[in-house]
Each structure stands twice: as structure tokens, then as C-alpha cells.
């Protein structure tokens, strides 16, 4: 099964400078350091996740993405990453602009709300979906935006964001190649490589 780490690793250059927005417990950063010897920093607000990063010797900065990234200079990083966090931000479109200002390239992953499971939950069961990628009840969730990969690409076009590359991850349906044929239905997660 395709995993997010291996896709990101293919797009990140060796020994480059990486900023990981919403780095969680630092798993992506740690694997990039091991495989690509990157010099990386993670931004995070969850105190337990921050403790994990510190105990692993990773650079973690306590900073709320919703309060902006104005402290980072233009083009100060080779890659700016954001995995499974875009849907939690107050203004995802402004965050994307900031990421592209700070990084030469951006790598963004998000849950695709067009996936058949979420469609099924909403369309047939009439309930808001609770899936592995969106694992929260509607009343207590960090995920405050629900969008499909098509919505995301419309936003990119509107803001003149260049889609350099994209990969869809579809769990078991990957084995049949369905996520490549009909990604908005079969991909639960989308991974994008963006540039200005």
C-alpha cells in the first residue's frame, strides 16, 4: 500500500531545509531525517505531541498555525509540508499562500471528502462520516472544513497555485487501481506537490 511518507520522500531533496506545519509526534520529520538527512523543524500546538518530538530529539516549535506564519522569511525553506492538517485551519487558503511564500515547494495532504465511504455515510445513512481519516464526531472535531480533491484543485486554479504532482491513496481499492481511475470516489487521501 502506498503510504504518505514514501510519496513525500520522493519529492523532498536530500539535505534540504524542511518545515512541517502541524508535525504531530514528528513521525514524518523523523523519517525524512533518516532517509534524506534533511534539516527540519516542526510546528505543533498539541502539548503531548510536542513532548514526543522533544523526547525524540526533533526540532519542534510551539506555534499556532491559525495565528499566521509571518515570522518565517520568504523562500526560507526548500519544502514546506502539511500532512492531514489543512482541514483543521481557520483559513486554509491563506495558509496555502503562506506556505508558498515560505517554501520553494509545498507538499500538502488532506482527507478527500469525496471518498465513497464518506459519500455513503452522508448520502445513504444521512450521517456525518466518521472514518479512519476523519475519526471524530461532528460536535468534537478539529476538522472544520470538508472538501474533495476537486474542490482543492479549483482553489489552486483560482489562486494561481501550480500543481506539480499529485498522488491519491485509496486503501484496499488501490490494489485494483481504482483510485487512479476515479480518485474522487476511491481516494481517501490526496497528496499534492505545489509550487508558485
Amino acid at each position: 500500500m502506498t503510504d504518505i511518507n514514501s510519496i513525500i520522500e520522493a519529492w523532498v531533496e536530500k539535505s534540504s531545509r524542511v518545515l512541517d506545519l502541524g508535525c504531530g509526534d514528528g513521525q514524518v520529520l523523523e523519517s525524512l531525517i533518516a532517509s534524506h538527512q534533511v534539516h527540519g523543524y516542526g510546528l505543533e500546538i498539541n502539548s503531548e505531541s510536542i513532548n514526543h518530538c522533544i523526547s525524540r530529539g526533533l526540532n519542534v516549535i510551539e506555534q499556532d498555525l491559525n495565528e499566521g506564519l509571518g515570522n518565517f522569511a520568504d523562500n526560507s525553506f526548500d519544502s514546506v509540508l502539511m500532512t492531514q492538517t489543512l482541514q483543521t485551519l481557520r483559513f486554509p487558503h491563506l495558509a496555502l499562500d503562506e506556505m508558498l511564500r515560505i517554501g520553494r515547494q509545498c507538499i500538502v495532504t488532506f482527507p478527500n471528502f469525496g471518498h465513497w465511504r464518506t459519500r455513503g455515510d452522508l448520502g445513504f445513512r444521512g450521517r456525518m462520516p466518521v472514518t479512519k481519516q476523519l475519526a471524530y464526531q461532528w460536535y468534537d472535531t478539529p476538522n472544520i472544513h470538508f472538501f474533495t480533491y476537486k474542490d482543492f484543485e479549483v482553489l489552486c486554479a483560482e489562486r494561481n497555485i501550480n500543481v506539480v504532482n499529485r498522488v491519491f491513496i485509496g486503501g484496499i481499492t488501490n490494489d485494483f487501481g481504482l483510485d487512479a481511475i476515479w480518485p474522487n470516489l476511491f481516494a481517501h487521501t490526496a497528496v499534492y506537490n505545489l509550487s508558485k
Partner: protein
Amino acid sequence: MSTKSSSTVSANIGSEQSVLFRRPLQLACGTVLEEHSLTFETYGQLNDAGTNAILICHALSGDHHAAGTNKDNVVGWWDSYIGPGKPIDTDVFFVVCPNNIGSCFGSTGPASPAPATGNVWGAEFPVLEVSDWVKSQTYLMEHLLIDCWAAIIGGSLGGMQAMYWAVNYPKKLKHAVVIASSLKLSAQNIAFNEVARRAIQSDPNFHQGNFIEHQTRPTQGLALARMIGHLTYLSDHALGRKFGRLVHSGDLDSAEKELVEFEVSSYLNYQGDKFARRFDANSYILITKMLDYFDLGANFENNIKDAFKQAACKFLVISFSSDWRFSPDCSKLIVDALIAADKDVSYLEIESDQGHDAFLLPNKRYEQGLQGYLKHIAKTLFKVAV
């Protein structure tokens, strides 16, 4: 120097030592101290490779007694954080805390005799800068046969020393832990220090700093200076939570309201008087000026990024949400410059209502962060399984 393994026991006691350095110390102001002594405490044991030493840098009013309970039954000023099983674990690290020159707890300072005259230095004690404290600490480092500190840790003025070490002695430390500190003081901070100095200087017993000669002490002025300082180290909310409008003595409902003393007034007066008994007025003036003069970027055309490019160590920066003397914004400037200089840094902004004093007080998140960081140091620098 044995230690017991328990998170509740304090560091071993009775380790106060003094060392007299008979080699000159060239100060930033141009004056040379032909000799100077440092009083210090150590906790734990230096390992055979000498790789587990931690230097603790004290702040304005601190001393060498950082941990444990000393012969006078006084608990160290950072006992919550230094000791067996504590974040700065004395079962793992060899911890060194000196009282710095210019202070008044045994190390050479304004109350020491000046070699030229034999009389106390008093107001004649040379002006000091953070660089002088650090240089004197390098003498202590050699004395203790330490080649490289595993970490240098300090809060407030202590953090300034840690940063100064990192930029100016890059090969001498592996990690700098900078807590509730700043690259330089703000105008408001300098102003508070000036008010404190003026309070001391206005005391008729100050005698232009030569009060020891006059066999007196400017305790009123020093107490007032401390009250002002102490108040600014706390937050409005913490004071309110602790004291509110509680009355210490007298009765607000009586006709004699002028006899009423609020709890907060009593507390502040007590803190001021207690401080005035233990601290030297000249030291207070000297060290507040040290704070005012500090400017890490000054030798780098105010480019902090260039300053930090000199550093070779990793950094942990910590701030506290309600600290308005050394606010989180001050720490963020440090962090941003370190990231721009491509240095390894982690940053914690700890939620606390304790103001600047939070860096001295127990706080679970702060403890966990510091502990996690130092455990990783032990694991990577000298392979301690933790």
C-alpha cells in the same frame, strides 16, 4: 557525592565550595581583576569522560545554592528542577552552579576588599557585563576539568549567559536551554530597573554606594527596589488569585480604616525586607545594569541571525504565557533567529499565570519538556539508558 534515586529527595547537600583564581580577568569595561573568587555548589558526579556536566546560570538575585537544603536549612532556588529524578537529574548529570562575580554570596563583588586599598570595593567595583560572568565561568570550567558542557541552562539573565556562551564559546557546549529570556531588554524593562536603582540611591543610608564604610545599609531603598521588581515578576491574575482583597490586619468595617493592611501589602513588604537583609545594594545596581547593557546582536551589527550562526550547539527555548517582563514575544525572536541561522531549536510556550517567576516554580508541562529534552541529551551524549 552520593545521590539517592527518588523524585522526592533533594540533591545532596553540603557541597558549597570556593575557588580563588589568581589569574587576571580582563573585564569588558577595561578593568582587570587580578584575582577573583567564585563560590559554587555541585550536585551529582562527573563521569569519566567528562561529558555529563551541566552549568546552571543564575539570574539577578540568584546564588550558587540552586538545589537541596543547605546548612542554614535553606532550600535551593531551583530545587523543583534539580535533584535525583528531577528534570535536571543529578543521578545522571554533574550539575554546577556558581554565584557570579559582582553578586554577594561569597564570590568577588562590591562587598569584597579591593586589592589596591584593602577596603571594600563598594561603589568602585567595576561595571560588569554578561560577557564577564561567562568569562569567569570558563575559569571555573577549567578548574573542574570540564572540556565541554553537556548543557548550559538559565532563566532570565541566566538565559542571556547561555546564549552568550553559545555564540562566543561554540565549542564549549552541546546544548543551551534559554528560559524566560531575551536578546536584549525592552525600554520598559530598562525603565523598571532604573526605578529600582533610583529607589536604592535615594536611601540616605546609600552614601553613594559606600555604605559599608559608613557602617550602615540602605535597606529601605533596597526593599523598595525589590518590591517593585517582585511585583513586575508576577501577573495581575496570580496576585489576585493568591491575595485578592484579603485583609492581613485591621478591619475594613471599622472607623479606623487607616490601620488596615491588605495581605498583598504585608506580603510585598515582607518580601522586600527579607531581600534587603540578604542582598547587597551595590550588587543590585551592578546586576540590573548588566541586564540593561546586554545585547546579543551588538557585535554583529544587530543581526541576530549572524550572531547565532556562530553557535554550534542545539537550543531549547521556553517562555511563559503571563510573563510580561520577558514575554513569549521576546523568546520567539530568539527562536526565529535560530531557525533563520539554520540551528537546531525547540520552543515551548508554557501556559502559566505566574508571570516571570514561573520559570522558578513547579509546572507539569515545563517539567516534562525540560525532562524530555535532557533525557534525550543523556541518551545521545553519553548513552544513558532512560
